[in-house]
């Protein structure tokens, strides 16, 4: 049984306006997404800005309440659990945020921040709190004296490590990493990614890794979901990505990656145009307006079909 099973998840954000402040439109952030994550697996979610990947990640943790659909974690449907019943799952599911500057409370020292969460879930006895916090900081490569500092005293990379320490301190099983490195310098990105990899093995974590950078995902994940405008357009094992990815959008993403071999020249498939507005998504294939191989049939929605054990694809033409 998969650890996480998401079925037909939909998240719409209502847009209010007018004199009576009624709902005048919906932003279709996530539009009927289904997938599962096995224990110990690392699933990547890739897509460009605004495709709903962060919303999906936050909906899994109930930071956004889903409009419809079902999220089952370890056999329990957590989609509509009350706050009190959700608390044990809160410990088991954690998140690492994108922006290391807004993800730490500016008025709390590192120690206060970690202590509050650890005591809330009674992870260790109070007498061992300090030792535990120090060990957590050591795990993410920060010195002991970081305990009594405020977030603004750290660099971006250090702050991201603090974000990771906060998530890990609760001994979770499952972590959603929401673009954890995209706000960092490239040199720091590698450090943080390696840290995440090591910690994943050490703690036996299951991970959902959200990124807009297919290269990072390829390097880091077992399987990848390619999202476009709130839909999954392709799901594929990372090792098959180069050879078997067939959706024109996935190929465009692959084509956008620089190749570190001057001899290896492939034709560039540069995408034209913009992502359609999520207020008013097209009724057919979401990618139709930018697709180079679109045909008449693409005006209707292609189903996400299982092509092989590990490969799902939503395209009429491939």
């Amino acid at each position, binding site marked *: 049984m998969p650890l996480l099973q998401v079925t037909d998840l939909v998240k719409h954000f209502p847009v209010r306006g007018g004199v009576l402040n009624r709902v005048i439109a919906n932003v279709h952030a996530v539009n009927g997404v289904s997938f599962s994550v096995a224990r110990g697996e690392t699933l990547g979610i890739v897509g460009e800005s605004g495709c709903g990947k962060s919303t999906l990640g936050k909906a899994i943790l109930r930071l956004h309440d889903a409009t419809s659909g079902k999220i089952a974690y370890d056999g329990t449907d957590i989609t509509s659990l009350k706050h009190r019943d959700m608390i044990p799952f809160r410990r088991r599911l954690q*998140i690492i945020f994108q922006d290391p500057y807004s993800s*730490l*409370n*500016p*008025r709390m020292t590192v120690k206060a921040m970690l202590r509050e969460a650890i005591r809330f*879930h009674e992870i260790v006895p109070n007498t061992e709190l300090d030792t535990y916090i120090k060990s957590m900081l050591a795990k993410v490569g920060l010195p002991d004296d970081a305990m009594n500092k405020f977030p603004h005293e750290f660099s971006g990379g250090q702050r991201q490590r603090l974000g990771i320490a906060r998530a890990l301190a609760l001994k979770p099983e499952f972590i959603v990493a929401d673009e954890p490195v995209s706000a960092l310098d490239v040199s720091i990105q590698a450090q943080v990614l390696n840290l995440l990899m090591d910690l994943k093995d050490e703690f036996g974590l299951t991970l959902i890794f959200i990124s807009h950078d297919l290269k990072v995902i390829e390097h880091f994940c077992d399987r990848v979901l390619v999202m476009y405008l709130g839909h999954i357009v392709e799901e594929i094992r990372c090792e098959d990505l180069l050879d078997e990815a067939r959706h024109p959008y996935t190929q465009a993403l692959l084509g956008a990656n620089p190749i570190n071999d001057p001899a290896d020249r492939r034709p560039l498939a540069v995408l034209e145009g913009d992502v359609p507005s999520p207020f008013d998504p097209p009724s057919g294939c979401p990618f139709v307006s930018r697709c180079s191989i679109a045909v008449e049939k693409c005006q209707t929605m292609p189903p996400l079909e299982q092509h092989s054990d590990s490969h799902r694809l939503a395209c009429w033409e491939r």
Partner: protein
Amino acid sequence: MIRRFMKSREVRKLLRNRLALVSLAISGLYLTVGLAVLLFGLITLDDTEVRVGMDSTPGFGREVKPEERFETCDWYLTRFERLLKRKDVDSAIAEWDTVAYRKLAIDADQLEERVDEAIEIYEELEEEEDLDERPELESRLAELETIMASFFVTPSGFDKLLYDARLCLGTDRQGRSILVRGLYSIKVAVQIGLIVSLIAVTLGSLLGCAAAFFGGWVDHLVIFLYSTLSSIPNLVLLTMLAFAFTGSSVEETLIPVYVAFCATFWIGPCRVIRGETLKLKELEYVQAATAVGFGRLRIMVKHIIPTTAHLMFVNFSLLFVGAIKGEVILSFLGLGVKKGPSWGIMISASRPEVLNGFFWQIGTATVLMFGLVLSFNILTDALQDAFDPKHAG
């Protein structure tokens, strides 16, 4: 905790600003006087009501013309003659309190004798016209003043200092010390400023924070309340509320003033804190707190309210000054402080004096108020600069 606060970037920045330091010192002086009166009774209400000299005497540092000196003698002589007509003159002398802190030093016989003596010179001088232009009469006038002075116990040491201090800014039309009344008004101002701004900031911040954080009907209710209240002109509402208390048992206290100000002053902080909370609650650290599993109340109290502290701080000092200015206006209109002095009452009472060219009372009240309001405004500005995270460095 305090040491960390004193060493923080904000405080160090504040201490580098020289103008802020001066205004901090001045505001601190006002607060000290205000609190000394409020807590230790440095000046009591009775001190502000007693006569310490004759009516409308000017303060020190101004040349007193012979005509005015003559009038002073006239004023005292009239009262001594009245005293001599009493049945039991000796006990009347002992109880003489027409002018507080100024006891008579003589018995009934001596009094009668010296009053006669004084009246002789007095009548002689009264016949002359235009004393100001007649330097040759100076010696007679001085003689009269010597006799007048001999009636009283001459204060010495600390008493003399106090006696001079009470008269140093002159007296009002009831012979009360302007300095004492002006200083006592600091207490009134500080008391009203502190209580009103504390209540208003607390109330406004909690409402604003709750409105933004919980949204829905809570938000609608709070917005409705403050937009309704702020659509009524502030002063009209204050006047109406002050009137509403007329005749009730708390009319004489400051409670109507507190209620009137708190009813409108919470709007400012409420609006600011609501806006800030709307911004903060979408930040990722608040989502992180939700992901840990904290309840909404805990997130609001521990993660949102502390982050809006600098806004509360600034709003507090703005309202403090606002309440003081408002109190002066209300008291000037006769709706604020009902018992005891206040700068508003002093300014209001000095209207006829100003027509006669007597500026001591209105001057004292306005200068004291000006000093407090200006220094506090500068301090607020400096606080805002120092504590606003956007003005880093």
